[in-house]
């Protein structure tokens, strides 16, 4: 019993320490950073004034700026819109493909999964620039459409894989039973396959929705100047205007917003499950 517990700590310890040091602590540093003044040339102003008149210590100025102008909330709303649309398009495109792979003969499945992840073998930026070349001649570049295309293209495998993993586990006898009991093709999908695939849909949606919010490269390369999303704003705060506290505050706001959306989604899902 005792050695069992020791083993548990031995196995669970290193990743736990890793997460504390490289995730929890940085997150806390970010919270503190969002409450400080920006340094003169980037970075953060000191906590204690070293010369008279210097801005030092803690402040909620970044938050005041954020809430005093609608433009930031608008960018947040737009970002969530882009993420939601990307997630939806990914879902609609991934579902039939995942179902097709899951119902293929076993010996072809691994090959098909390999083809799904094959694009990862070439560099992400190269693939996004390829979209520039493809969309350019059609005058579609630097538009919302181009941004969504790029986002969907890059994130599609993250939707296909969890969906496939889920659909592959479905017991085909359940569909036989549903058909036997009077369900046509549409009813069999809607009442059996779809509800049973909800866990796959949720993990796929999380794997697409959250990274899209933080993505800045695709909007920057394929979108126009008006198509900034939160990711661009954060990147610009750190690397452009060099206002670290403001960037930290935006990151924190984004984290809170994502948690709120995820919480609402899982609450809705639980409620839906009870009703169904």
């Amino acid at each position: 019993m005792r050695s069992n517990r020791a083993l548990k700590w031995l196995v669970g310890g290193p990743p736990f320490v890793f997460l504390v040091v490289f995730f929890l602590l940085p997150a806390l540093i970010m919270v503190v950073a969002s409450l400080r003044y920006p340094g003169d040339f980037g970075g953060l102003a000191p906590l204690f004034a070293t010369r008279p008149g210097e801005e030092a210590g803690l402040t909620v100025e970044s938050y005041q700026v954020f809430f005093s102008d609608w433009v930031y909330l608008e960018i947040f709303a737009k970002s969530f819109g882009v993420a939601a649309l990307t997630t939806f398009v990914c879902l609609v495109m991934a579902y039939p493909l995942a179902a097709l792979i899951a119902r293929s003969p076993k010996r072809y499945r691994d090959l098909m999964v390999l083809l799904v992840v094959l694009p990862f073998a070439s560099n992400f930026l190269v693939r996004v620039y390829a979209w520039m070349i493809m969309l350019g001649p059609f005058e579609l570049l630097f538009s919302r459409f181009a941004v969504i295309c790029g986002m969907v293209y890059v994130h599609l495998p993250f939707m296909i894989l969890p969906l496939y993993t889920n659909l592959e586990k479905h017991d085909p006898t359940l569909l036989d039973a549903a058909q036997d009991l009077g369900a046509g093709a549409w009813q069999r999908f809607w009442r059996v396959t779809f509800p049973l695939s909800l866990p796959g849909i949720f993990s796929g949606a999380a794997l697409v929705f959250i990274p899209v919010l933080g993505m800045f490269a695709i909007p920057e390369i394929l979108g126009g100047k008006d198509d900034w999303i939160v990711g661009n704003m954060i990147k610009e705060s750190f690397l452009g205007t060099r206002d670290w506290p403001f960037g930290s505050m935006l990151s924190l706001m984004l984290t809170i917003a994502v948690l709120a959306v995820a919480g609402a989604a899982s609450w809705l899902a639980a409620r839906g499950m009870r009703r169904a």
Partner: protein
Amino acid sequence: MALLEIRNVTRRFGPLAAVDNVSLSVEAGEFFTLLGPSGCGKTTLLRMIAGFDQPDAGTLLLDGEDMADTPPERRPIHTVFQSYALFPHMTVAQNIAFPLRMAGNAPDEIASKVNGALGLVHLEDKDRHYPHELSGGQKQRVALARSLVNRPRVLLLDEPLGALDAKLREEMQIELIAMQREVGITFVFVTHSQSEALALSSRIAVMNAGRVEQLDEPSRLYGFPRNRFVADFIGKINMLEGEVAAVEGDNVSLRVAGLGEVRCRSAAALRVGARAALALRPEQVRIGAAGEALELPNRYPGKVHDFLYVGDVTTYVVDLPNGQRLQALLPNSSAGRAQFFEAGDAVAAGWPAEAGVVLTD
């Protein structure tokens, strides 16, 4: 007219005929069983009745109507699957309501029918449970209730008791019979267990290698098997191989190597010199102590090779003079049970002339 009629149905998988020119008819209200070893074609036949598979030749008629163009979802035939196939994301009540919703019943009608079905299988208090919260026997009942709730014309059962332990299986057998009588729906039951088939069925079709070997009532199948396969498959049997030595009316004598002429009865037309076998049930064989004068036309000295005591009865395995082993079943507590024998004891074994069946196939 029979409710379900199967006419010359054949289904091939590659060169193999899984179902080979089978014809049979099932009457309304019957408990009909397809019995056979695995791979005999019984499940293929069941899938064709359900509509999941189509025959390569022949027709399936329900109430005289060809079902070839009717998909499974439109056949008034439901199946209880071996794995139960309950929908894991639905409660017991939702599972049972499924066929009613598919048929477009009104909500209050669904509620009352679901309650009725829950009562039929004694699961009134489990309506809000999910399948993973139920025991094997309870899942089985839910599957039955779900398949019976909108009163199909025929209920197909694919080895539904296979996954239950022995005691529970016996209980479910008794319940199945009671349930079938109560609802009056025709059951077509598939099993490889001959004891299950004998216990449950009004008629049994014994299948082997895609063909029906014999179709009869359980007692006729047991008492009068038509050929060696059926005799061997249903119950335990001693097979004495020999050739027909003489025929006088119903009296037949069979020459068996090492035993001489064995006297038996047969109404069948037998040709002298033809190969035949006497199929003898263990309970038809009587044994006594070595010196005991068994007043039987067929009696032989023997030696107890081994015995199997199972409480109510004991099966003795007796070595006959020709080296053949004969099984004899003796009840343990009946009046007149004179003696118990040990392995190695010298005994006398015998049977009357009217015991057993003479088989040529």
